[in-house]
């Protein structure tokens, strides 16, 4: 039994060495693959952020105050506040007649 074990030992050592090398190569390949994946994900994140910024700018431009005022005056038939016209927006008390 002992002699048989002694005979297998060199092969086992060789097997361990070969396996280790395979594991190292596999790990390196996996690292490279993951790095590419990360690279791609970063690109997608950047694109998404960029698209968000563009949408945000579009929203701000569409809700520009001069634009809103124009729409209110032309499409919604609202009018400009006149001098002396009291518009009470907040508060709970009754506005005093002027």
């Amino acid at each position, binding site marked *: 039994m002992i002699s048989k074990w002694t005979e297998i030992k060199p092969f086992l050592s060789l097997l361990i060495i070969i396996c280790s090398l395979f594991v190292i190569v596999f790990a390196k390949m996996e*690292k490279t693959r993951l790095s*590419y994946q990360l690279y791609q994900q970063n690109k997608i994140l950047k694109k998404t952020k*960029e698209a968000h910024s563009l949408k945000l*700018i579009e929203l*701000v*431009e569409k809700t520009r*105050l001069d634009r809103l005022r124009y729409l209110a005056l032309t499409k919604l038939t609202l009018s400009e*506040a006149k*001098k002396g016209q009291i518009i009470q927006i907040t508060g709970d008390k009754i506005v*005093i007649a002027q």
Partner: protein
Amino acid sequence: MALKSRLVILFIMISMAFLGLMARGAYLQLFPHKKLKTLMERQFQTKVTLRSRRGSIYDRNGRELAVSITSYSVYADPSLIEDYNRAARKLSKFLEPSYSTLKKKLMRKSTRFVWLDRQISKEKKDLVAQLGLPGVGFLEEPKRIYPNRHLASHTLGIVGRSGTGLEGIEIAIDKKLQGAAKKFFVKRDARGRPLMMDLHSLEPPKDGEDVYLSLDVELQYMLERELAQALTLHDAESATGVILDAKTSEILSIANIPSFDVNNPFNVPPQYRRNRAIVDTYEPGSTLKTFAIAAALEKGLVKPNTKINCEKGEFKIGRRIIREADVNHKFDELSVSEILAKSSNVGSSKIALMVGDSEYRDFLQKFGFGRRPNINFPGAAQGILRELPWGQHQLANISFGHGITASAIQIAAAYAAIANDGQYRDPSFRVGGWEESKRVISHDVAQQMKFMLMGVTSSGGTGYSARVPGFPVAGKTGTAQMVDLVNGGYKKGEYIASFAGFIPAHDPKYVIYVTFDNPKNKYYGSEVAAPVFSKIAGYAMRKSGVQPILISKRNLLDKKWMNIEAKQEQEPVDTKMRNAMALVEKNTLPQLKGMNLRQALKISSEIKADVKIKGRGRVDYTVPGAGVSLNDDLKEIRIILKE
């Protein structure tokens, strides 16, 4: 020689050669040559720059004022372009430069790099990329977008193509906005793509900080709109406006008209891009009278009702004569309040002469004149406040705002000190980051000044058109002659019309200052600037939801003042009662007019005749009238009250 010996020698020689090679290899590995190291790095490594995103700028309510996006710049290597005519024709469909410009650029075969267009959008970039032209490439570049275009353009400033602030707030807080770009070397694959293998490459670069300014976009829009309308109406050269928070001196709005689109700043000459409200100074005119009077009140030299002889509009100092701005104004005697309300040059000159040059100069300095305000903005002006001694004529001139210069922001900040009960703060763009206030006048003098400035906007005052129905307004008009920078002296018929004030006067929320350069059809501050103030202040009140109040002494005086007034009024009323009682004892009906019901009843209880009371409020008149003998024939007295 034997074969064996020869083989040994050959073996030794080959071994030595290998040893030499190994030694050289070891040397190169352990002590690498600089040049060789560079070559090696170039072969296996690539330099990656991760640009930091420039921070956005928001207003105090979080509305975007400036945002950064990625844009693309198109370049070409002319040596790789085969048919430059065809390439230029195709590119000119999507890029801004014309066909001929692009053709000229592509014809330069001696150079390997030319910019074809800068900072184009992603959509355009994709269209150009689809052309598949060899030798045409793209580089990512940051682009600053100002979605509100003209709004607050002078304050925001501009950013260069490299993403660095060049003017305004963009340069003032450039480091904060820029962040830190990250540069590092990474190994690359056979196709030159970076291999993200180092842990440090996973960390994103430190982006620039987002900044919240004290500006309020809605107030800013309103201010710019009203200034632009008035500029057209009065055909003025330019207009400037400032709105400060009365308590904190935070800058809520700052506008200069004409304005420009910050997205295309180089389309206008540089002088149009200056934030004149901060960097330009001018003679403020009558708005400065407020401070001459405040100085005299603070020193106890005058009281609001002290009478000053205004010399019928002409006051001689040495060989020079001080005149009123309006030649028709020939005031005789005016109280200090009236001097402010009617804007008398002679009156303010006499008051300044009482204060004296040294004390008046110190006083003005406390209010921020003649020194650079502690505001984080490039090129903030300090104005001119001359060194002592001042001649009497000079002192008189300075009292009504000539011979001294200040910026719009300095004047607004000085008025904010009065509005803030005598405490001065430097104006600031930071939200909540204001500095400790400094007391420059006593609380009582500030209260007196508030009421005197309210007099300016009441009937008969120069600032009558600055009133806002429902809200008490305190302020002062200003009309100054424009300085002739070429020939010296003043320009004939050219004025600066201004109005400085705060609203609501009893509990100020906003300090507003507006000024117009060289308005043509009208030029008085009362006619040009005061109505604009009224519109802006009215909008600010509606926007902030401050409730309108009934303008009366009870609503406007603070409690401390009410008590002082009540005590002052107490004595005459008691005397009146004593005199009335004495008359009743002599059987004569006293004068009851102005007495309240309680006082009238107390007196009538001593009268034998029947007393009938009609109405509410105070005694208006009696039937029969005062002075009638209270004999037995008098059966009835009617006391008529009126609210």
